[in-house]
């Protein structure tokens, strides 16, 4: 094995170790802040998905694929779930 190849391999190895081990060397408070951000992002995604479902149901009603009665029940259920997500979001964001 030539020296250049050996040096390249060692440099790559060092870089991989540095990248992979970085989270283990991070500050604890920083990690906690990241956890909160992750939780909020997860709930935001859930909230937007729920709103999309509400819009879908409305489109189904308007194009005749949901009866008014079924839409009323589904819409209420989806809004109740959206409320739960909003509450959880407030809690996670500390509001």
């Amino acid at each position, binding site marked *: 094995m030539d020296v250049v190849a050996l040096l390249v391999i060692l440099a790559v*190895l060092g870089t*991989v170790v540095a990248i992979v081990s970085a989270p283990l060397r991070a500050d604890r408070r920083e990690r906690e802040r*990241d956890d909160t951000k992750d939780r909020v992002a*997860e709930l935001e995604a859930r909230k937007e998905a729920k*709103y999309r479902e509400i*819009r879908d149901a409305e*489109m189904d009603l308007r194009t*005749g694929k949901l009866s008014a009665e079924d839409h009323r029940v589904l819409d209420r259920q989806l809004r109740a779930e*959206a409320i739960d997500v*909003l509450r959880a979001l407030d809690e996670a964001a500390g509001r």
Partner: protein
Amino acid sequence: MATVGRALLILALATAAYGIVASIYGARSGRPEWVVSGRRSVYAVAALCTGAFAILEIAFLRSDFSFATVASHSSTTTPSFYKAAAPWSSQEGSLLLWLWLLSLWSSLVLFLTRRSLRRVAPYATAVLLGFAMFFASLLVFRETPFGVLAVVPADGAGLNPLLRHPSMMIHPPMLYSGYTLFAIPFAFAVGALVTRQVGAADWIRSTRRFALAAWFFLGVGILLGARWSYSELGWGGYWAWDPVENASLLPWLTGTALLHSIMLQEKRGMLKIWNVSLVLATGILSILGTFLVRSGILDSIHAFGASTLGVPFVILIGLMVSGSIGLVVWRREALRSDNRLDSLLSREAIFLANNLVLVAMAFVVFWGTFWPLIAEALTGTRRSLGPPWFDRYTVPLAIVLVLLSGIGPIIAWRRATAANARRNFLVPSVVALAVAAVLAAVGAGSRPLALAMFACGAFVVASVGQEFWRGVAVRRTMTGEAPLRALGSLVGRNRRRYGGYLVHVGMAVLFIGVAASTAFNDARDIRLDVGQTARVGGYEFRYVKPTSRISTNAAGSLEKISFGSVVEVRRDGRHVTTLRPERGYFPSRDQAALGALGRFFEGEATSEIGLQAGLRRDIWTAMTPDIRALLPIIQQGDEVFGAAAGKLPPAAEAAALGTALRGLVDRYVANPPPATFRIITSPLVTWIWLGAIIVFGGALIALWPGGDAPGRRVRARYAARVAEDVAAGREREPAVVA
């Protein structure tokens, strides 16, 4: 460079192993820093594989024959365009491509979900790294792409001529992208089962886009393969129920079922066991597809691998199957449906029927593909099932599938009422019946299955057209937008739904093309001398004159000899087109055994077809000249060159060979032997490719990320309405939840 490449693969293997341990330890001990470290291992594996793949690509592009893979799969005469694609014509390069794509897609999904699915993602990371470790192990211990030769040859063996086709540049990466992307829902399903999160819609929502991307890439790969078969293999068809074709179709079929049935889990909390089973089965079938291509266990025109990988793949597939069954049984309590089917006349029931048809098709394809192995195990004799067997079962199922794809978009959720049926089914049914009546009147009734497919296709186009029409009408009522703007905003605001509807239209168009081109084609093999005419499908084909040419590459080295023909096509005395099919002969490298001239006719031969494609009909020809008349001359030339071997300077020998070959091709033109022509006239073949373009266009619309400004405004409006509900008071809330 080979040393660095090998070292990168060893590092990738070690990093994957570390990442598995870190992810699982982090998840079980509740230490997120280890989970993040595990995720970063995936990024590192992707970077290492990118480096390894780049080294291999550079070796191919530079024709570095010290790499054994390059020497056996490329040559100085291989055009640069194909040198770039040559890595995946080899077993080891193909496995490296698989690993590289897996690592890239895994990195992307884990980056996008880094702030969500916090319980599921670590286990998914471990599973994805498990796949990476498996393939890295194969590349390190069994099939290294970085093996070097002790003696470097002056030239390589060259790329298989059959693979010298533009679609082969992207066909394997597309297929492998599909296979590797299907590993992602598989990994998240395992994570969801382990963490008991499988009932939640979050993991499905997060990985659905990747399942759709897998479906898209696999579909594009399958279509490119079909196109290659049609234009390169010289038999005139686009689908032969070949084991490797079938292997790619299997996960595509179950993936199609999955993309529909997950909507029931998202919307109604139904079919959880079915969905997770489909996810797992699709992941397993993707690995099986890779196994079939690379192992050569079943005879196939596409199987370019040798059977050295059978045992590790069988172990992996065995682990995946037993692990999947075990996990589903273990978590069966968490997989209970929230709702039941309200009516057999509902969208839920149609989705279920669509799933059953797709899985039945997958079962038929699986059974037919593996029958040779099953028969061998039972009787000791390997027997294959041909296209008629597959057609007997898949054609009726495909007709039902197309019909369901028309019913699905227009039937009501939960329970269809008579009013719903009248409102939504009247126009598509009338259109379908009218199309059937007109086509039956012009003679299509002689092929009842094809006629049924045309009617069902018309039903789909009409039902989806009606959906777009009504959607635009609703938007115009709500916003007062102009029709085109309303159409744009309708699709833009619900890309998944309307992209999916376009996919249905594309599939209908594609199946109409398949039905017409198989039921109403006219194919004949005819031996013609120059000047003779054959009549096929109402057209007259006249062999006008022979052609021949010697092709050289940019460096001036001889690449192939082509013997061709000029064929004039006429109908009712009127000129339609002129076709120029050819047969290309690529030289074998074994000059000592086959002779200086003979080696040109003992190596690979390919067909360059003559094709006149049109919206209504394709006219397709391929030719095989009878070169037996040239054999005495070839043998004579071989004897002369054999006697002169070593006595002439290389340059003089090359010049003499060039003169001899030119004499040979001139002789072919001066005294043309008869040729066997395969002539096919097929209606609507172009519809297959057009349908595929519509399908993939629709899939791209569905895949396209959201986040547009109008969407945000709508979300804000809904947020305000939901907030109003919150403020409305506690007494209303229990009723809402109930």
